[in-house]
């Protein structure tokens, strides 16, 4: 057999049917659903008289619209309430396992999948959410789908798919102190642009990727979609296996060892080729901050807001001008001179225990700037929340002036009451800085958890490397 990439191995292992001139029918190992994009899929099934083929391979959770405080109280948002009711009903009727708002395992779908070991190497995983690419950190082929495809998977456990091209994203060298997984992925998107990965699956490799924890790899794969790639993957290794062992849905004992043997064979073979290769030197990176209205509009914290007049492409100029107007920024402004009104630490990109520990180390014994209108820490799951509380992180954040909340998507998307008010500027660890993403008229700057924590303390962006470096991994 010719040498194959990680992507090709998983793809070929899941082809159910292939005919020339048609997309392949591929099997889906795990289907994750949430209240936001599933109700219409269940209605469609019902209308067509179909049922859920594999409820045992389907997992549901409430995350997008859940309140992050006062969860014991009735839900005031009647639209959100009807979503929750619909998900409860659909799961009850179809036998799909649901983590509802009261579940101790509730959390953001892309946090709980890996945390429970539902996500495993070599699998195909889909969810009606573009950040499904997160699960690729385990060496799975995971991508976001629309609601029609959610219905398709519910009915058939398969998807009709055209095979993607592959891009090797090689991140060489060691990342410096204060430079995190978030900075690496923002720098990659800044380099290739937000459409750079269209039609491709990314495989991240290189020394800097190998050196990351599973949390860091999830952050990287999570934002593949912001670079246009539907999926991003990292070959599983000892870091992966160590993370997985003992998790609820992971086989144990002999079965685990057999699984590890299978997973080890997934790595891209020597001599396998990719359609494209992108290289990045982690050692030369500085912490990143976005200045515009898409994740590709990003620069180093040591940099300045760019001048649209200096850009070559007229479309890019126009987009940058519009972005600066929306963001109320002047060209040439030093990033560190930009004040922030709010700070949000959370989202499927950066709400895992590693992220919270890093931010907490930085704010220990300190207080957020008086000028701040608010600072939120929203753990990605209730499991993360309990773990953080056991370590006393909640108290560190509270003492520093942050609000400590319950798990959910929260201010990344603002479908629950956590909305960024119009005109306010937020340092956010989330994944999208689109116009209105966190709230209509809100201005989002994407940063890493330590950069967000540092901005909270200072009231403006700061180069985290100039703060207490010992606290910054």
């Amino acid at each position, binding site marked *: 057999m010719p040498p194959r990439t990680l992507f090709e191995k998983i793809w070929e292992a899941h082809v159910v049917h292939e005919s020339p001139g048609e997309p392949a029918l591929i099997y889906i190992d795990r289907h994750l659903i949430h209240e936001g994009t599933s109700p*219409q899929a269940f209605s469609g099934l019902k209308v067509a008289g179909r049922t859920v083929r594999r409820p045992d*391979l389907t997992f549901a959770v409430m995350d997008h619209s859940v309140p992050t405080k006062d969860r014991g109280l009735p839900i005031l948002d009647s*639209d959100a309430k009807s979503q929750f009711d619909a998900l409860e009903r659909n799961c009850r009727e179809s036998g799909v396992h649901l983590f509802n708002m009261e579940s101790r395992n509730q959390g953001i779908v892309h946090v709980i999948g890996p945390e429970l070991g539902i996500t495993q190497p070599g699998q195909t995983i889909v969810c009606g*959410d*573009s950040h499904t690419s997160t699960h690729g950190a385990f060496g799975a082929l995971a991508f976001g789908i629309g609601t029609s495809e959610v219905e398709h998977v519910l009915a058939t456990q398969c998807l009709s798919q055209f095979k993607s091209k592959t891009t090797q994203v090689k991140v060489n060298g060691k990342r410096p102190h204060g430079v995190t997984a978030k900075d690496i992925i923002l720098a990659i998107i800044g380099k290739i642009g937000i459409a750079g990965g269209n039609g491709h699956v990314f495989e991240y490799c290189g020394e800097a990727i190998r050196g990351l924890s599973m949390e860091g790899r999830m952050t990287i794969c999570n934002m593949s979609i912001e670079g246009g790639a539907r999926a991003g993957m990292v070959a599983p290794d000892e870091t992966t296996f160590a993370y997985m062992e003992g998790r609820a849905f992971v086989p144990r004992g002999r079965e685990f060892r057999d699984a590890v043997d299978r997973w080890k064979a997934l790595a891209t073979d020597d001599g396998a080729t990719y359609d494209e290769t992108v290289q990045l030197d982690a050692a030369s990176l500085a912490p990143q901050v976005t200045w515009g209205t898409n994740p590709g509009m990003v620069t180093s914290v040591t940099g300045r807001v760019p001048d649209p007049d200096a850009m070559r492409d007229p479309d890019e100029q126009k*987009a940058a001008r519009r972005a600066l107007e929306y963001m109320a920024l002047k060209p040439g402004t030093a990033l560190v001179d930009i004040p922030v009104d709010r700070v949000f630490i959370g989202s499927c990109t950066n709400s895992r225990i590693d992220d919270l520990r890093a931010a907490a180390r930085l704010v220990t014994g300190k207080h957020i700037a008086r000028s701040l209108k608010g600072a939120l820490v929203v753990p990605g799951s209730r499991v993360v929340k309990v773990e953080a509380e056991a370590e006393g992180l909640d108290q560190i954040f509270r003492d520093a002036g942050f609000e400590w909340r319950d798990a959910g998507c929260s201010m990344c998307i603002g*479908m629950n009451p956590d909305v960024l008010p119009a005109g306010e500027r937020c340092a956010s660890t989330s994944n*999208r800085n689109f*116009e209105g993403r966190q709230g209509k008229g809100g201005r989002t700057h994407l940063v890493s958890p330590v950069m967000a924590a540092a901005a909270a303390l200072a009231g403006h962006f700061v180069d985290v490397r100039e703060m207490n470096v010992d606290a910054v991994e």
Partner: protein
Amino acid sequence: MQPYSTHTGLVLPLDRVNVDTDQMVPKQFLKWLTREGYGRVLFYDWRYLPGEKPNPEFVLNFPKYKGASVLLARANFGCGSSREHAPWAIADYGFRAIIAPSYADIFYNNCFKNGILPVTLPETQVEALFQAEAATPGYQLTVDLPNQAVTDAKGLRFPFEVDPFRKHVLLEGLDDIGLTLKHETDITAFEQSHPETATMYDPVDFSK
């Protein structure tokens, strides 16, 4: 699904690159349980001023584009979120075809599931269409799927590529799920021969 064959309609130019699906249907409308009724909220934040007053500066509100059904757009149209609410809104508003130099993958795929034809043309041709539209009041285009061409009344003709399978499904308005269910035997055989992936491991020490 509504089939698509040939459509002639008024062109609406949306002259922005990287239009993301958050702009097409903002978050607050992702809580509805239906697939219908999103046309009213298409491009909501750009389209309406406070109090849902139409923003006279946004192209969808220009009286001359009332009834437009061909959306002319720029590169990487539909990037970001996978929300199918975006094509639902575009279809519900009355658009049948989109013409752009490129699309984000998930959005492109979602269009075909909703009877919308997303045509890809080179940047230079899309630019030519923007110019023709600007120069021609009431500019109409015909987007012909069987013959794979975009044409206008003055004789302009831009051929386009589309995957033959997608074309077939859209022309016939076929039910994707129905097509897949024809392979029921293959699916069952796959499940039996791949227990390592098609079986759920019983969790240990686990409660909800």
